[in-house]
């Protein structure tokens, strides 16, 4: 009874359901503090220290952030990652959308094609990247063999700093099956009567696509943009496997394939500069946060059918 006096706003039944509800979600609550909030705060604290694991962390103020401003490799890492987010990602999403539109044309054998485009998305990233390593091989790769066949000079797909990022984007298109299937599911939900009535009004295929289909699935497009922007900022495995050398370093010739997460990994787990790496992590966190907020703020183009 004493509790109900202190909290007069909750009835006995509400209080009970609160306790039961919290019990059910308790793994999430514990996980939230243990694996999210706690580490985020700690990460911020570490970012103001010098910490090599062996000795206890030593407070160094803003030094880590100051050093980052002058860190050449860090800058290259940001540039390369932005290249992936601003150039690679739009290319991939447009390409995936085109593939989905194509598959949505009442094609026969849809489930077969769907499987073919999806399979690369479920194979282990390392295993499938290894094939591409061989396809892109400058000396014995099939891609240069093909160029030779049509009379073009060979390209250092992974060794030429100008080509390595386009090569990664090219390979990345192969991993897009997941997005194709998300788009396809969205396209199949576009009401048929809408498209038919537009057709009766004399709209052509292009008009139907841009005036009806794309606006109708804009929430799906928005979702894939958000998820992928966050994902591309963390781009790691493909580039790591593609450029890893025998001494354990990676990043390609002249760091041309050094991405943000790769440098962070090297700083933390190869050089054991935990404070410096934490500062990098926090800057990445801020960048992703700002990018996500920006996308949500500018989401006026997203059309929610249910609201009308």
């Amino acid at each position, binding site marked *: 009874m004493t509790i109900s006096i202190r909290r007069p706003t909750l009835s006995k039944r509400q209080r009970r359901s609160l306790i039961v509800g919290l019990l059910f979600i308790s793994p999430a609550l514990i996980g939230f503090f243990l694996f999210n909030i706690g580490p985020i705060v700690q990460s911020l604290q570490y970012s103001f220290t010098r910490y090599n694991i062996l000795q206890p962390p030593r407070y160094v103020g803003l030094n880590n952030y100051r050093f980052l401003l002058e860190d050449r490799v860090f800058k290259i890492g940001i540039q390369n990652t932005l290249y992936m987010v601003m150039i690679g990602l739009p290319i991939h999403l447009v390409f995936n959308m085109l593939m989905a539109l*194509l598959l949505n044309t009442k094609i026969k054998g849809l489930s077969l094609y769907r499987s073919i485009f999806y399979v690369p998305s479920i194979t282990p990233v390392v295993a499938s990247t290894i094939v591409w390593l061989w396809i892109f091989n400058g000396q014995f790769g099939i891609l240069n063999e093909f160029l030779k066949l049509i009379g073009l000079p060979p390209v250092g797909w992974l060794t030429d700093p100008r080509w390595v990022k386009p090569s990664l984007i090219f390979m990345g298109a192969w991993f897009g099956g997941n997005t194709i299937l998300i788009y396809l599911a969205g396209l199949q939900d576009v009401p048929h009567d809408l498209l038919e009535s537009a057709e009766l009004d004399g709209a052509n295929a292009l008009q139907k696509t841009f005036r009806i289909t794309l606006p109708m699935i804009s929430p799906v497009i928005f979702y894939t943009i958000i998820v992928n922007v966050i994902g591309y900022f963390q781009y790691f495995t493909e580039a790591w496997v593609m450029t890893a050398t025998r001494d354990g370093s990676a990043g390609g010739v002249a760091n041309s394939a050094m991405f943000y997460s790769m440098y962070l990994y090297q700083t933390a787990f190869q050089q054991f500069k935990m404070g410096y790496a934490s500062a990098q992590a926090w800057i990445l966190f801020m960048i992703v946060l700002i990018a996500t907020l920006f996308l949500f703020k500018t989401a006026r183009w997203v059309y929610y059918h249910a609201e009308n």
Partner: protein
Amino acid sequence: MTATTRIGWRENRIIQDRIKRTIAYTIVIVMAVAYIFPLYWLLVTALKTDVEIFQQPPPIFPPEPQWQNFAASTTYIPFWRYMWNTIAISGLTVLGTVLSCTFIAYGFARIQWPGRNIIFLIYLSTIMLPSQVTLIPLYLIFRQLGWVGTFLPLVVPHFFGSALYVFLLRQFLLTIPQELSDAAKIDGASELSILWYVMIPLMRPALAVVALFTFVQTYRDFLGPLIYLTDQKDWTISLGLKLFQNMYGAQWQLMMAASTLAMLPTIALFFFTQKTFVRGIALTGLKG
């Protein structure tokens, strides 16, 4: 409009449709071949001799396929050990995720408690957190616990839920009529027994989606094992594949053979459970 022009218009349409359809088919087939090609090339390279690997131009299919490369690749590295490690980690991760997410989703979807929606939104926002932010403190915590070099850092966190899958299961639970719970409550059932006897049988398709996605996701993971599995005998297959590149050069044909074998479990899983996958992708993609 006269009858003849109308027929003309209709025929015109049919022809147009047919042209469009042919173009669509052509592009889809060309793209499908392009998507299959890397997998074909993987298999073919796996079947070559070490001489044929470097032959120029490369043979499109080896005259004498070296099937023994597959067996050789599983002894060149401790292949089966790595596969077992991978499957053990993935299996435990699936167990943890399915178990915890079921409870959490039930708490968010089927019990009315004050503050539920705001807490759910805060919880959901963790989906957008880049894992790098928590990576270092977590590593240091696990190191202090003496867990680095074991499976624990890769598995244990999954027993505390994953926001994306909680979201998916919650959406599913919200579609189940309230009357079912009310009826059970009148009969004196507790929330726990409603979850066990009423909801879980209905949730099976959604749970299958969560289990499959978690399995594939863990099976493909590289960064987690790279950081935490410090002892070579504990490696997952994704880490083990790099052992084919050593100081004597790369054993390309063996590496390709092992990569092919490493892909088989998830590809087989996909072909047997295609419908579940496709439904799951629609669920995660559309309800976001």
